[in-house]
């Protein structure tokens, strides 16, 4: 079989399995069973398939994933997250579009603590959205920022998906985690700028309301009490990795234990909510890891079938310039992002992309950040952006999916802007890791 025929058959069957609604992990299991039979030597191939799958997730580079997720889960289930939002709500006043700005700032703070984008969106959506709508905010003004900032969660460490990308693509995990900070914060600032401008241009979008008068100390106290310790955890986790005191796994474990300790100090920790947080953690981690068990061998089968080499050679022989190839890869990612989940996106594309990254000599950390921004946009782009569904599920019944799409559009445009900016000015991604990892 020629390489392109193998590629078409493998991807064709995989797509069909996805479309009939088989869970993503099982779709990969299915195609791998077929592929292993033909390319890895029948029965021996099937035995190998299972061995590979288990060995692939028995990896120290993946152990930060559950710990990063645990940090966020503990905050959500103990209610500490709610206290932090209230605190942020108190210190932001007299800003046009105040509650939308609160959503972005609170979302950014959570990004710095939680490793899970969906949890962030669900929490902010269920907490702030009803309040905004009650205050007469336009639904676009209310829903857009919450979804947008949920996506940014992926860029700002700790982030489970960044760990996964680094691990699967062979990019330094610590450097990649830190490289996301500048673009992530930049996006948050762009969102705030946009909200303020929109609210100034048309105050009816976000009616201002009287905020109760209180002394400055009263305003700042909750911030110091409930947000500063969380910020401190973030600094410790990032600093421990950057200074080389701890591996990403160790930094993540310390962060998780510190978060539990903070919840305990606030007297917010009970055995029952700790168990809920742990169950949530195990669930989210296992969903990710189960897809990896399924998909690792997929890359191997693609190699054995000749599809990977064939594709890479075809691109090389076609004599495309590096920019053409880079832009083509990003377009493929944006397109994939509209249809499949983030983990599957990585597993489908990386076997082809990383050889091309090596061939063209792209900086892997820079490429990794571009990849992350594409995945973040994938969370927000119709028809199947995960955060759109998350928002729809927490929004009032009368809000239609079309309105959710409409609300997120400006933020998708800003995300594309950030993608182009990082593409044209690589230091946006590479400056901070270079500075910290001399």
């Amino acid at each position, binding site marked *: 079989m020629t390489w392109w025929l193998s590629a078409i058959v493998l991807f064709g069957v995989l797509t069909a399995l996805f479309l009939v*609604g088989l869970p993503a992990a099982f779709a990969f299991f299915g195609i791998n069973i077929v592929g292993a039979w033909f390319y890895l030597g029948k029965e021996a191939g099937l035995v190998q398939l299972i061995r590979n799958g*288990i060995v692939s997730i028995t990896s120290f580079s993946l152990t930060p994933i559950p710990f990063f997720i645990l940090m966020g889960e503990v905050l959500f289930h103990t209610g500490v997250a709610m206290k932090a939002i209230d605190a942020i709500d108190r210190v932001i006043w007299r800003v046009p579009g105040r509650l939308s700005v609160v959503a972005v700032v609170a979302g950014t703070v959570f990004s710095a603590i939680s490793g899970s984008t969906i949890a962030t969106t669900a929490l902010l959506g269920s907490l702030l959205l009803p309040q905004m709508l009650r205050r007469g905010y336009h639904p676009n003004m209310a829903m857009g920022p919450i979804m947008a900032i949920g996506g940014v969660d992926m860029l700002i460490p700790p982030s489970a998906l960044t760990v996964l990308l680094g691990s699967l693509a062979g990019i330094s995990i610590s450097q990649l985690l830190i490289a996301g900070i500048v673009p992530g914060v930049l996006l948050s600032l762009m969102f705030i700028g946009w909200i303020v401008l929109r609210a100034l241009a048309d105050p009816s979008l976000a009616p201002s309301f009287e905020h109760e008068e209180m002394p400055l100390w009263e305003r700042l106290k909750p911030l110091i009490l409930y947000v500063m310790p969380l910020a401190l955890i973030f600094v410790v986790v990032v600093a421990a990795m950057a200074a080389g005191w701890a591996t990403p796994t160790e930094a993540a474990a310390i962060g998780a234990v510190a978060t539990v300790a903070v919840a305990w100090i606030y007297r917010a920790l009970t055995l029952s909510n700790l168990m809920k947080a742990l*169950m949530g953690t195990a669930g989210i981690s296992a969903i990710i890891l189960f897809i990896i068990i399924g998909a690792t061998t997929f890359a191997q089968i693609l190699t054995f079938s000749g599809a990977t080499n064939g594709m890479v050679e075809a691109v090389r022989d076609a004599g495309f310039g590096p920019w053409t190839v880079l832009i083509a890869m990003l377009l493929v990612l944006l397109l994939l992002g509209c249809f499949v989940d983030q983990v599957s996106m990585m597993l489908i594309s990386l076997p082809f992309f990383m050889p091309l990254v090596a061939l063209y000599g792209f900086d892997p950390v820079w490429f990794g950040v571009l990849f992350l921004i594409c995945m973040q946009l994938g969370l927000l782009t119709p028809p*199947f952006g995960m955060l759109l569904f998350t928002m729809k599920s927490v929004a009032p019944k009368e809000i239609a999916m079309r309105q959710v799409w409409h609300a997120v559009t400006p933020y998708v445009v800003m995300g594309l802007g950030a993608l182009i900016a990082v593409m044209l000015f690589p230091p946006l991604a590479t400056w901070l890791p270079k500075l910290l990892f001399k």
Partner: protein
Amino acid sequence: MKPYALLLRSLAAAAAVLLGAMAVLVTLDVVMRNVGLGTIAWVNEVSEYSLPVATLLIAPWLLHRNEHVRLDVLLVSLSARAARVLEKTCDVLGIAICAVFVWYGIRLILDSARIGSMVVKTLAIPEWWQYALVPVCFSLLAVEFARRLRE
């Protein structure tokens, strides 16, 4: 709760507790190393093994609660009857896939145990221990798909 659901939930809870214990152990190791109490050599290795163990323990519970990521685009756009046919197709495919994993998982375990392969890092363990949960997990997953098929 029915015994079946209780079983799945208990396995899931075991996975949750395992991951929590790992966070504590890894932290303890870092602290001990930095205050000069030496290091717990096996922690890194055990935390690696905990990933597949936790995943296999909780996977059936996740399927039971329909939490595995899936694309339901076709399902929601089809008529109720066509969607039902599609769902059943999925369940049958699921059972077939699980059967392959159970069968070849057992083969893998038997082969590995027969040769006596060991994984030697800090700890030395028989290789087949790593795969012991595979047939258990996929049998439960198959039961879950079969249960859906009958609904």
